[in-house]
């Protein structure tokens, strides 16, 4: 029996390790390969370490591949989209969770339906729509401004809007769990609706605000298809879009080192953040366990 149990455990570990290897090995290989020079890809073994740690790939990606500019664009669009999503979703979620009013059911139902509309489904009509709007606004103001196409602020607003169903849903569920007593106590103390919301409810909702911001950060930072469609100007691209162009240029030059350096530059911020947050989540879980 004891022996059989041991055998069983070995099999379990084997399954887990095989799967973990398929995830970790490509990532490590890619990171190592990002330090290789062009000629090392065709001649040497796939598994060979780089002859020298060729940091110039990163400089090439950053400067020639313009990944530096794209990094800045990505940081700008992502942070703005996070700010937009919280300013839009927090009050809406709070009101939907705690007030009764005409049309509430309809709004909730539409938001729920929105959960099933993926950004890829609507990217083409979105392009047509914002093109029309841009034409209209240009005629109206008689200028050539980029109101929607090649506009980072507009892209951030579109990101925030498209993530509204999920963001509102999650925050709404949290606001519902805050006991009514807080609300009543604040009311008696003479707080108005707005003050209760900003001074009491938002601070209390901090944990769920952090959670949703992390999810949104990942989806905004990684988003490709909408940015690819709405940002046509070379200078305006975000990191994922810029990366595909780095790869496109590479097909003729086969400078794989530079491409892999670009890949590492795109995934590094998300992996670092994930590792940091992972710790926070485990800590939170053990704390919750102690309280029970």
């Amino acid at each position, binding site marked *: 029996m004891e022996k059989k149990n041991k055998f069983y455990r070995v099999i379990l570990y084997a399954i887990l390790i095989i*799967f973990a290897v398929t995830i970790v090995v490509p990532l490590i290989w*890619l990171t190592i390969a990002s330090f290789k020079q062009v000629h090392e890809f*065709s001649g040497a073994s796939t598994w060979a370490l780089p002859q020298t740690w060729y940091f110039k790939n990163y400089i090439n990606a950053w400067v020639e591949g313009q990944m530096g500019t794209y990094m800045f664009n990505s940081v700008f669009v992502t942070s703005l989209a996070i700010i937009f999503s919280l300013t839009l*979703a927090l009050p809406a979620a709070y009101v939907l969770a705690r007030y009764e*009013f005409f049309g509430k059911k309809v709004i909730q139902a539409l938001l729920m339906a929105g959960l099933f509309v*993926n950004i890829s489904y609507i990217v083409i009509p979105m392009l*047509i729509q914002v093109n029309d709007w841009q034409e209209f606004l240009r005629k109206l103001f008689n200028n050539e401004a980029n109101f929607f196409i090649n506009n980072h602020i507009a892209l951030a607003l579109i990101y925030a*809007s498209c993530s509204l169903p999920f963001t509102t849903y999650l925050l709404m569920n949290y606001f519902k769990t805050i006991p009514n007593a807080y609300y009543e106590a604040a009311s008696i103390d003479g707080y108005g609706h707005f003050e209760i919301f900003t001074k009491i409810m938002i601070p209390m909702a901090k944990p769920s605000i952090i959670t949703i911001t992390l999810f949104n950060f990942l989806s905004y930072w990684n988003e490709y298809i909408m940015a690819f469609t709405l940002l046509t100007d070379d200078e305006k691209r975000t990191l994922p879009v810029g990366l595909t162009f780095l790869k496109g240029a590479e097909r003729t030059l086969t400078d794989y080192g530079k491409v892999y350096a670009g890949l590492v530059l795109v995934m590094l911020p998300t992996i670092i953040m994930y590792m940091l947050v992972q710790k926070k989540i485990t800590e939170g879980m053990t704390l919750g366990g102690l309280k029970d």
Partner: protein
Amino acid sequence: MGRKKQQNLFVFFALAPAVICFFAFMILPTVRIFLMSLFEVNKYDAAQTKFVGLNNFITLFTGKIDGTIIPEIPLKIATSLKNTLFLVVIVGIITLFIAILMASILVRENLKFKNLFRIIFYIPNILSIVVIAGIFQAIYEKEFGLLNAVIGFFGMKPVDWLGTGSNTIVLYSLAGAMVWQAVGYYMVMYMASLSTIPEHLYEASALEGAGKIYEFFHITLPLLWGTIRTTLTFFVVSTINLSFVLVTVMAGSRSDNEASVILFEMAKQQSVQGYAMAIGVITFMFSFGVSVVMNAITKRETYEF
């Protein structure tokens, strides 16, 4: 009375920005898909745009356009739908199988480094789809790619994983990338659900001498079934999206024929707005239809604990 008015004002101003943005950037584009699919759109002269009923759909399904028949049109739509369905089904079955297996190992078994494994398995889900495409281009690369290096180790000949000509191999390669990306996410969902199953159920069955496999099929799976069905609906939507982006980034222009998926056809037709929107409608119908069928197939008596 003044208090009631104050409250209404607050509700209005709290909701208005979100509702306006949601309407402008989600509802309007969605409505546009359904509406414009019934029109022949003239981009340069809006006055020339005219209502054509279901003509765009007839063209897509029969190839009939201005009296002549172009058989490539329905063929392409059929191929892309077939490919999309193939990916949804294949990726779905493999992803769910691995995710459930991993989740039940990590929750049920008393092993070391569980946390580490969970952290690793979730990593693909935090990467951009463009990064995943890049990783899998490196894996599938014909000359120095990882996969060919691995199978070469076992004495097998290198394979052109993303090559054209042999339809099925590209699709299987895409499916591999999609499974790799999705498993971690569903695993974490199932882990959360599994950890709520009361321990005494397993203790009772262990007392009666039931084996691990019996436990899995008679306790774990039935109690997880509700969660699996919920995730399936989202799975269909996200797989259609993922296959589109992956095909766009990985195969690019080569995916013209073999590996096309439905949204890719929509993007290709974007200059002919009526068609593009009609394809969009088909995509919506398709994902809805697949979800309904999946729901029907997976319908079982639900168990409560």
